[in-house]
């Protein structure tokens, strides 16, 4: 008999103060509090974190890999968004 499945949560940890939270994996847990505890036991057994976020996996909205080209390609043609597009005489020095 397959039993009722435990909800899935995505786990994000901040490794040090000053850094952003980063996705590290997922855990199954009945509620948010247990998800936090499971995330701590699963992903931070060696001081990997100073903070943990858990987010219900179902709450994440992701872009479609099939639309990667149309979504991200336009930025490739906008080279004027990069500093190297602008020519500054050497005499001006570092800018």
């Amino acid at each position, binding site marked *: 008999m*397959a*039993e*009722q*499945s*435990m909800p*899935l949560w995505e786990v994000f940890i901040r490794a040090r103060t000053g850094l952003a939270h980063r996705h*590290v*994996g*997922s*855990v*199954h*847990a*009945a*509620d948010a509090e*247990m998800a936090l505890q499971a995330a701590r*036991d*699963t992903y931070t*057994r*060696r001081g990997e974190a100073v903070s943990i976020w858990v987010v219900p996996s179902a709450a994440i909205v*992701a872009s*479609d*890999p*099939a639309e990667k080209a149309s979504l991200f390609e336009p930025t490739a043609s906008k080279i004027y968004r990069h500093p190297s597009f602008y020519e500054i005489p050497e005499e001006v020095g570092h800018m």
Partner: protein
Amino acid sequence: MYTQALNEAVERPRVVEDPEKLAAFQARIDAEEKIEPNDWMPEAYRRTLIRQISQHAHSEVVGMLPEGNWLTRAPSLKRKAALLAKIQDEGGHGLYLYAAAETLGVSREELYEQLLAGKAKYSSIFNYPTLTWADIGCIGWLVDGAAIMNQIPLCRTSYGPYARAMIRICKEESFHQRQGYEIMLTLCRGTPEQKAMAQDALNRWWWPALMMFGPPDSESVHTEQSMRWKIKRFTNDELRQKFVDATVPQAHYLGLTIPDPELRYDEATGHWRYGKIDWEEFKRVIAGFGPCNRERLEAKRKAHEEGRWVREAALAYAAKQRARAMAQKIAAE
């Protein structure tokens, strides 16, 4: 730890794939691009990975049992704490891997049911008993050592979630192996009885450890597709040889004898050549007739059954809390 290439056969395609998509997929693999969960992938690639990752996950959690056998009898508090931490790591490895398998569209419950029903395989090594404390040393040194050899190339495997799980796992395995070797070292520097105990454990674990790399290349005809998909990067025999070359000098340092009369150093190639592996024993253990197969599955089933009320209570509590919060919200409106 522990993928074993138990069943080398790459899953046969059940559907006819679009040749254009297949070619694009192979091109991405060839360019060393990682495949991510939502990307298109051939159905056979998906099923091959589900099987390999889940077997690997099962091995991690079954692997907790032979070591758990010695937790209450560890010779000191320090050893006990270290062993407990190692076993907890193995549980964590199982969890990372089940999570990686789930990204392929199969649930952990489903995979676990397969294990408990005896339909899924796990590494043959965990069907051997841990008779003495020296076995704990040998498991860390040899079994985790073999696992590291197997797993380091998997950090570059083509499926992103699997590769990332393996990176985390490999970071933790090094402690496991050193912990085991240190136990062996302490025994070998101890009384003659302790050293004899270490030798006895090596005698029993050496050959099963070599079997962890799976059947010889001559019998694993299906590795080719796995290599082409870059799920696998070295053959079983290549990895086994690396392990032997690394381990023989470590045994010599301990003053122990490898239980293989044919073992010799090949000057020309720089490799240690080992004797014939008893593949009949391997097949028996994989088929369910090893010394502890029944005991292992029974222990897992018992733990799963006895934990059922905890899972049910946790879900019931969460549902009650949600209902209560909902009722309060409605009352407030």
